[in-house]
């Protein structure tokens, strides 16, 4: 039941090929800026690590390694699903494509749920230095608060990106479930895919910097 695949050429482009490439390049450039956004945080994490190695290790030991690892696996699988969706969209297979996209979004939600659980554990363990009404009880020295704070900023920012990604995924699945979508806007699926892969990639950097490197 494959449908025709293509894109509607907008006024200021010569042809579909040009429009497709333009959109793709645009997304790449955007992702570049995103990468730099996170890199500022990674550098900060690194600086803190160099300045206070002991406190950082102490905090890192308290991070829930297995939750992080499971989440890594979840995101890898979700990336495969997304690739499946893109492949199907190219072949014009609407049903499988939407199925893959929903699976991707579902895995994203699963990630967030696990992350939420992890935050909850952190809260219970008094690992929330930025909450003024709650005692911070992890390690005595102030530098450990820093790294914990940074952990929240980094994972939080990633979670925001992921939430946006899930939102886009759901909207796209809804749009794509309507007839003729693939005939006109197939490249939007590809663009969405790029963004999703990127969020996964960021997590692949976050996980080692926070959980692994400091054990």
């Amino acid at each position, binding site marked *: 039941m494959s449908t025709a695949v293509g894109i509607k050429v907008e*006024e*200021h*482009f*010569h042809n579909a090929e*040009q429009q497709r*490439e*333009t959109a793709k*390049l*645009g997304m790449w*450039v*955007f992702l*570049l*800026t*995103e990468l*730099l*956004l*996170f*890199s*500022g*945080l990674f*550098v*900060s994490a690194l*600086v*803190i690590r160099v*300045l*206070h190695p002991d*406190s950082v290790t102490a905090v890192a030991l308290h991070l829930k390694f297995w939750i992080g690892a499971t989440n890594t696996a979840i995101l890898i699988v979700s990336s495969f699903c997304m690739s499946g969706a893109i492949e199907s969209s190219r072949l014009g297979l609407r049903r499988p494509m939407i199925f893959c996209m929903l699976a991707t979004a579902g895995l994203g939600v699963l990630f967030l749920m696990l992350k939420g659980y992890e935050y909850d554990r952190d809260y219970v363990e008094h690992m929330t*230095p*930025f909450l*003024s009404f709650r005692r911070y009880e992890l390690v005595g*020295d*102030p*530098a*450990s*608060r*820093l790294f914990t*704070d*940074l952990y929240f*900023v980094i994972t939080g*920012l990633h979670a925001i990106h992921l939430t946006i990604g899930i939102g886009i995924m759901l909207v796209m699945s809804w749009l794509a479930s309507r007839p003729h979508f693939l005939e006109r806007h197939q490249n939007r699926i590809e663009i969405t895919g790029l963004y999703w892969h990127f969020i996964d990639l960021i997590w692949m950097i976050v996980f080692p910097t926070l959980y692994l490197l400091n054990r």
Partner: protein
Amino acid sequence: MNPSDAALRDLRVPAPVLAVPDDYLHVEQTLGSWILTTDHKRIGILYLVSITGFFVLGAIAAGLIRLALIVPDGSILSNDVYNRVFTLHGVIMVWFFLVPSIPNTLGNFLLPLMIGAKDVAFPRLNLLSWYIFVIASLFTVFVMIWGGVDTGWTFYTPLSTQYSNSYVLTAVFGIIVVGFSSILTGMNFMVTVHKLRAPGMTWFRLPLFVWSLYATSLILVLATPVLTIALILLFADRAFGLAIFDPANGGDPVLFQHLFWFYSHPVVYVMVLPGMGVMSELVTAFSYKKIFGYKFIAFSSVGIAVIGFFVWGHHMFYNGMSPFAGLTFSLMSFIVAVPSAIKVYNWAATIHKGSIRLDTPMLYALGWIGLFVIGGVTGLMLASTAIDGQVHDTYFVVAHFHYIMVGATVVAFMGGIHFWWPKITGRKYSEPWGRVSALLMFIGFNMTFAPQYVLGYMGMPRRYAVYPPAYQVLNVLSSAGATVLALAYIFPMIYLIWSLWYGEEAGDNPWGAKGLEWLTTSPPPKHNFEHTPMVDFDPYDYPNVTPEK
């Protein structure tokens, strides 16, 4: 021009609209057609209007600064108010005026025209970028005027995170949001240059203005997110006690400086590169000659953009950084000056054996070279570590960056506006007034900022509302200069607006300049060209003979 037109002009009434023209200004006239437009030319105009507004605000703040500094005892503005005023001035001028000035007005207008495209790659994002810009900037300026922020535009921690009793949070929030507008524009321009060039428009046939915009966009895309994250951390620090920059809790205030300058040094090249691009266009057009060393100029833009990322530490020589790091940043700063030097020498060589016309834009261009070179070489002095120990955070620095930001970028902006005014509006402005203003600008500018070099070397610190009386004479001179400078800004605002109704019809190519934008009509039609142009000529292919006047 036909005779009836001339006659009507003499009667000082607007030229009649005989047939309704269908250029981009006239296709639709409703308000909605402006604020919902996706036409890059109209968006350029929207930007022009909004940044002019912000410039006026920033200039009023500058006026207040100069007014207050006439007396040494700070009796005109209290310390607190003074701090708020220069912070307002710096923030407006940097983020709401200079960064978007040339790229978002002239760049938006000209980039697609120059490469023979119908629009930028993502017209809707372009409009979105304007909305983000205007809303966030208005919000920030509102906060800064009604509440006030007193940390300087540099927002150094821990003053900004813990000690300042001013509206840092809201202002920082606004600046973060404005950053997204920069990112969108940068991204849009990069993709446009890559993918939307007309057939035959190879990279080395691009006008140098496009090269400089490309380099600018590269910086915007790579540097802005770092500012975003630095400010997000600052925000979280102040709002939630995150302590990343708080030394009492193991944080490091200097880390903020690194993140800030990692953005803010490259961003000074965002401010000057487009100006350099404009320069290349002006110098060739008014020398009526091919540019000297096209590739060197093109690559020097990219070179500045890339090397510019490795010199940020020169703002921090004396904050306790390791001497090794200090020397490295110093060396890199010397190296980043080389591409600028290449450009200056190349323009000089371009003029040689040209056929030079001293119209208003060219006057601005010549003034540009003088001021930029002075600003640039004093930058080199600042980059010489030991000298910076004397003049860091003094008026020497203030003079340095005004020479480049005002003397170079604003002057280039004025030159560019005058040069492309006929294309943008289809009208000519008054040439004598133009020349007078250009001259006034040059004189007023030097009067204002040259004394500041001396003040700086004598040791007057910047951001001082109260200063020792020994420095008063030069300060008064500087304030007097600012008055002259103010005239040089006010005149063009008047005669340019006047020309919209009463100016002479310009014709498609009043300067006899080369470049695709001059091949279409003035003002250009909605989609820029009747037919997509085929490019089979080099840029600046001015003929080898002297044109007859």
